[in-house]
């Protein structure tokens, strides 16, 4: 069974479109409404998908981990992470599944730099390149795209991975865990659309995030 986890925070504008276009590629879709104050969850419910509600906003990493834990409890064999803001192309889920189904990898990561980054501002590119170097240095994993929310795992891989970071640092944590558990990983080209909507939604995703991510990773080392 293929489960797609969609973390969503105040995505009422995009959620229905995203869920509808995802349906052909998933057996189960799990929307994690991360304490939205808009109609995100009620709209998601009309699409016949699982909806899990965080009572208060716990941020991206926490939502991903909730959806993933639920997917595992449903018995999913493959779990895909997919953003709710319409940046990714649902049809490309197939590209991520292929290496897993052929047992060529345990984790497949989407790369916008192998694929296409449509409308990506130059400063975002710069930050992303920095993230690539950071990951290479700290996790020993050399990627072309280190902070992409489009990824797929086998059930077995996820059972070896701990997802404890609540914020964006989760993405770094996943890579670190891949390295720690010596999982087989593969990057596949994906398309990321930078629309006005997505750029506006993620406007906090900036230079300040870098400091936050590093701080979270550092503090995380001391939390028992």
């Amino acid at each position, binding site marked *: 069974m293929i489960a797609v986890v969609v973390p969503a925070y105040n995505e009422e504008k995009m959620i229905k479109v995203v869920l509808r276009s995802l349906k052909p590629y998933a057996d189960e879709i799990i929307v994690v409404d991360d304490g939205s104050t808009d109609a995100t969850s009620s709209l998601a419910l009309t699409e016949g998908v699982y909806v899990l509600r965080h009572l208060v906003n*716990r941020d991206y990493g926490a939502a991903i981990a909730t959806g993933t834990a639920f997917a595992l409890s449903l018995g999913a064999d493959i779990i895909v992470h997919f953003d709710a803001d319409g940046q990714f192309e649902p049809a490309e889920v197939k590209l991520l599944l292929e290496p897993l189904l052929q047992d060529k990898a345990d984790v497949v990561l989407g790369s916008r730099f192998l694929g296409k980054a449509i409308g990506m501002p130059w400063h975002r590119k710069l930050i992303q390149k920095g993230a690539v170097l950071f990951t290479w240095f700290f996790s020993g994993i050399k990627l072309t795209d280190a902070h992409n929310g489009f990824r797929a795992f086998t059930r077995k891989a996820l059972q070896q991975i701990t997802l404890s970071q609540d914020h964006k640092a989760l993405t770094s944590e996943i890579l670190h865990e891949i390295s720690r558990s010596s999982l087989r990983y593969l990057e596949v080209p994906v398309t990321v659309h930078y629309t006005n909507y997505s750029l506006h939604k993620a406007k906090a995703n900036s230079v300040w995030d870098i400091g936050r991510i590093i701080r979270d990773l550092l503090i995380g080392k001391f939390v028992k």
Partner: protein
Amino acid sequence: MSTIQIIILLFILFALFRLYTRRQKKEILTREFIEWLLFWILVAVVTLVPDITSYLASILGVGRGTDLAVYGALLIIFYLMFKIFVRLEKNERQLTQVVRELAIRNAVKKPLDDKKDESIKL
């Protein structure tokens, strides 16, 4: 005795009194009580015999006793801040666990054709 010494000593007396009442109400652990008691005794000693810090400073190679006191205070503050950060992160994660558990328990999926709720309990 200078005015500043009297002010500091009065403050220490107040702090010790508060420490004692908090211990009586069992708001703090014995270990914490002893840690704070030792800390305030140390402050009292330094206040009453400031030359001690000069002596320590000369051993450690720091210019003046007051400098040593400032360095020491900074170190303690940074350490406490770090501990608070870690504690906060731990609380955050515990909150996430509670929120997650509730979210998973109350997972809902409505079938597309009929309107009946299909809540699942795990």
